[in-house]
């Protein structure tokens, strides 16, 4: 690593003798870079394309749509395709509304220099909000083009239509190309929220199961993932995370890596990284560099989370207050007056996003501007973060989106880009940071824990009489722009502090008639590990508890659980999904548990956020008592997300929701001791595998005349309770703690619950 000849071979790699570097490392100054800055080279590179001059406004047609003279169109979408099918669905919506052939459209996603900020691709909002916004821009554009043609031809607008990139006179069949009407000019129009939408009966693209454009490239090794991006002069970096959460560096000894050529160490306070031209060298250096860390014990340990939550709620230092979220009638009095009150508590553990590819990002921090390549679900938000940590104005930063490994919320993508930005700024060269598997499972922000206690009663007629939900939840910090990131935190850079969880208190009571209802929450100031939003945030745990407890109440009244639900359900779309699943399962009314002792069925219904997608799920299981194993045989789902843009892509989202949640419910809990996360590989953090995969039956209930809703999350929320209910039906064992491990199944078989 002291090979000075490297200076001649590659002027971007200037090393200093090891002795100097070690001296430097002993110091505690804010920034130590153990080699010379590459600023000279940086200045010689091209200026990044920061200001393209196109509209980036969400209320302007030109923000989203550009028509070229050759008849092609570019759609600029602030939301991104996270493997979800947006890349075909958005063009379907835009082409349909504008009257363009699908092949004419190029979609640009998430590039902050080119796309309007439509908010993060989160909360199932890609189509529901992002797509709908673009559809309205397309409708505005189409009306404007018709207006131009009407003027040119002197015909009334009502006698014109659009097709195939042309305005057409209905009588003479004359055609005027959009490009000719625009003659190279932008639309210069505000989006008209009242521009009429095409009649769904006339759709030719929306509603078709068109193939996704990325899949052929993905399965032939041609798709350019974030992890595959290469930038001229790019160096490979690995960040060395502390031995304990919140630890600081006590000493560094680089003796072990002195034999490696071409390695640099970057240290900014407790932020430590190694950099090399060669990726494997960087990996070795990160492993072999000896770092002594302080030894804090800041964590509570995963097995104590539940008791910690209960205690924190009554500790003034840790409680963030109690709140009644919903109240109807008088549940307390009704419960007191009831003959039999049921109570049960349910726990959902901390979980990792567990993306297959550990997070990766590239930053090129130059004196004249910064470019970040990222797989973030929120490139526009990340732009602000990077500007802030680099101390630059927003317009000096561009974030370019590239597909990463599956992203199910705020995982490590933002962290890794902040890592890369800090290192690139320090060394003046483009830097690629690739997290390890241990980094990803150990340090990605975690889905927060949730604890729910339910009380309820059934009246003399066997109907739901009263219901109370009490929740213990980490409280999200109001107006927090982003989760605090690891790199800036270690480097001592000021950043907004607080918790980000997603909206985790929704779906906390049953969507059935309930005259007496109370939902309370005990808000907690902290969470055991840094939290973030993870797919179907909160709703997955809340629906697990609510739909399990409904089943417990039905069973206590010796009622069929589906009938018990349906008699309190009035929403016709809710009834439709429930009835569809009942039909597909050939549901026969009877109380649970079944008599077989090993085979069971369970049901669950969720109206996501009480105002979005409707989902019902039925699960059939077999219990292997001796092993404590749950064999999931078949999962049936009926799904109504309004207008279906692309039925195959939607179906795939539902499949993914179901199988990923089956994994989270059966297997997943982030384990940690008092120092740090200990479940850092696929053995200690297991996922669902192929032998576990059941038969899937999915029915999409299309609503062509209703607005499109999200399909990226809702079905998740219905899985865990359907599974728990099926287990109970099979063997009378009630599972109230996730994951449903064989040990828990055995305990539940022995004592009735676990």
């Amino acid at each position, binding site marked *: 690593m002291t090979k000075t000849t490297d200076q001649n071979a590659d002027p971007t790699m200037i090393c200093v003798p090891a002795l100097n570097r070690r001296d430097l490392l002993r110091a505690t100054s804010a920034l130590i870079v153990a080699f010379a800055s590459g600023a000279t080279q940086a200045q010689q590179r091209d200026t990044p394309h920061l200001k393209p001059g196109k509209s980036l406004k969400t209320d302007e047609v030109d923000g989203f749509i550009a028509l070229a003279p050759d008849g092609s169109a570019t759609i600029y979408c602030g939301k991104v395709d*996270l*493997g*979800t099918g947006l890349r075909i669905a958005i063009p379907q919506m835009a082409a349909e509304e504008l009257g363009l052939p699908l092949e004419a459209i190029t979609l640009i996603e998430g590039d902050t220099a080119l796309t309007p900020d439509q908010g993060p691709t989160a909360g199932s909002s890609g189509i529901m909000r992002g797509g709908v916004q673009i559809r309205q821009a397309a409708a505005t554009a189409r009306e404007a083009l018709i207006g131009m043609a009407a003027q040119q031809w002197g015909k009334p607008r009502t006698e014109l239509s659009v097709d195939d990139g042309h305005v057409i006179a209905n009588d003479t069949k004359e055609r005027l190309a959009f490009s000719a009407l625009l003659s190279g000019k932008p639309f210069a129009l505000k989006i008209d929220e009242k521009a009429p939408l095409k009649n769904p009966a006339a759709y030719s693209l929306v509603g078709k199961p068109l*193939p*996704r454009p*990325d*899949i*052929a*490239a*993905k*399965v*032939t*090794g*041609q*798709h350019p*993932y974030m*992890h*595959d991006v290469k930038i001229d002069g790019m160096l490979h970096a690995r960040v060395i995370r502390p031995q304990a959460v919140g630890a600081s560096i006590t000493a560094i000894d680089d003796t072990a890596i002195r034999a490696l*050529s071409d390695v640099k160490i970057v240290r900014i306070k407790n932020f430590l990284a190694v950099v090399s031209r*060669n*990726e*494997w*060298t960087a*990996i*070795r250096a990160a492993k072999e560099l000896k770092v002594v860390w302080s030894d804090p014990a800041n964590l509570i340990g995963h097995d104590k989370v539940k008791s910690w939550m209960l205690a924190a709620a009554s500790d003034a230092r840790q409680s963030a207050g109690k709140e009644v979220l919903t109240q109807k009638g008088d549940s307390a009095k009704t419960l007191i007056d009831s003959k039999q009150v049921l109570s049960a508590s349910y726990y959902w553990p901390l979980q990792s996003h*567990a*993306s*297959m*590819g*550990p997070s990766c990002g590239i930053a090129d921090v130059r004196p004249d501007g910064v470019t970040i390549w990222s797989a973030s679900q929120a490139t526009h938000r990340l732009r602000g973060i990077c500007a802030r940590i680099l101390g630059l104005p927003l317009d000096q930063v561009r974030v370019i989106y590239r*597909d*990463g*490994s*599956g*992203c*199910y919320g705020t995982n490590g993508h933002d962290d890794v880009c902040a890592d890369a930005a800090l290192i690139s700024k320090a060394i003046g060269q483009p830097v690629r940071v*690739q997290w*390890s*598997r241990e980094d990803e499972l150990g340090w990605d922000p975690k889905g927060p824990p949730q604890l729910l206690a339910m009380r309820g009663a059934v009246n003399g007629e066997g109907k739901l009489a009263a219901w109370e939900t009490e929740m213990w939840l980490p409280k999200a910090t109001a107006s927090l722009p982003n989760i605090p990131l690891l790199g800036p935190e270690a480097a001592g850079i000021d950043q907004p502090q607080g918790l980000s969880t997603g909206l985790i208190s929704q779906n906390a009571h049953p969507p059935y008639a309930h005259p007496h209802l109370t939902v309370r929450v005990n808000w907690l100031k902290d969470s055991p590990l840094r939290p973030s939003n993870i797919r179907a945030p909160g709703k997955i745990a809340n629906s697990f508890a609510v739909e399990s407890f409904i089943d417990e109440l039905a069973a206590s009244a010796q009622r069929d659980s589906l009938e018990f639900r349906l008699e309190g359900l009035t929403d016709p779309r809710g009834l439709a999904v429930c009835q569809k699943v009942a039909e597909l399962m050939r549901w026969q009314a009877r109380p649970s548990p079944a008599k077989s002792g090993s085979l069971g069925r369970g049901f669950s219904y969720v109206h996501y956020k009480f105002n979005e997608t409707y989902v019902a799920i039925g699960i059939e299981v077999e219990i292997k008592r001796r092993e404590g194993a749950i064999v999931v045989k078949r999962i049936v789902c009926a799904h109504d997300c309004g207008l279906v843009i692309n039925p*195959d*892509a939607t179906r*795939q989202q539902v*499949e*993914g*929701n*179901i*199988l*990923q949640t*089956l*994994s989270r419910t059966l297997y997943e809990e982030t384990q940690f001791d008092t120092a740090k996360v200990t479940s850092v*590989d*696929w*053995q200690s953090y297991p*996922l*669902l*595998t*192929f*032998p576990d*995969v059941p038969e*899937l039956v999915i029915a999409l209930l299309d609503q062509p005349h209703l607005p499109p809703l999200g399909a990226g999350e809702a079905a998740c929320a219905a899985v865990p309770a359907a599974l728990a209910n099926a287990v109970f039906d099979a063997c009378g064992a009630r599972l109230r703690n996730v994951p449903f491990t064989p040990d828990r199944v055995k305990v539940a078989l022995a004592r009735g619950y676990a």
Partner: protein
Amino acid sequence: MAVYHCSINGQNRQIESADPDQPLLYALRNDLALTGAKFGCGLGQCGACSVLVDGEAIRSCQISVSQAVGKTITTLEGLGTIDNPHPVQAAFITDQAAQCGYCANGMVINAVALLMRNLKPSLDEIKQALANNLCRCGTHDRILRAVMRASGQVMP
């Protein structure tokens, strides 16, 4: 800097490495511009970096450049192209068997290896063959469907 020789996708290739223990994965991705194989864990637990070595599915994070010497290696790119995909790749496209697709390399490579030793595997045999290949998006059902299709069968 030592040089290691092997056959990759039908061509004799040289890999230069200062470390004989460097996993093949990094040579493929960084030196040979073959990025089909993905880094997933570096532990041989997920299968995302699989390649065919002498016809067998091997995790390229677990085989070093020195161990690759003299071997015949096929990567995802060597199986087929977008215009002329391998039958397994074609089946994955037909069944749209990828979400993020990061694990797809391992799925295709391991399915190809399976079909080389078993022309008509049962659904359970496919599940067992892919048991050590992880997918986080929940694409399993389509992957099974695609492998059945590639072997001329339909999902039961």
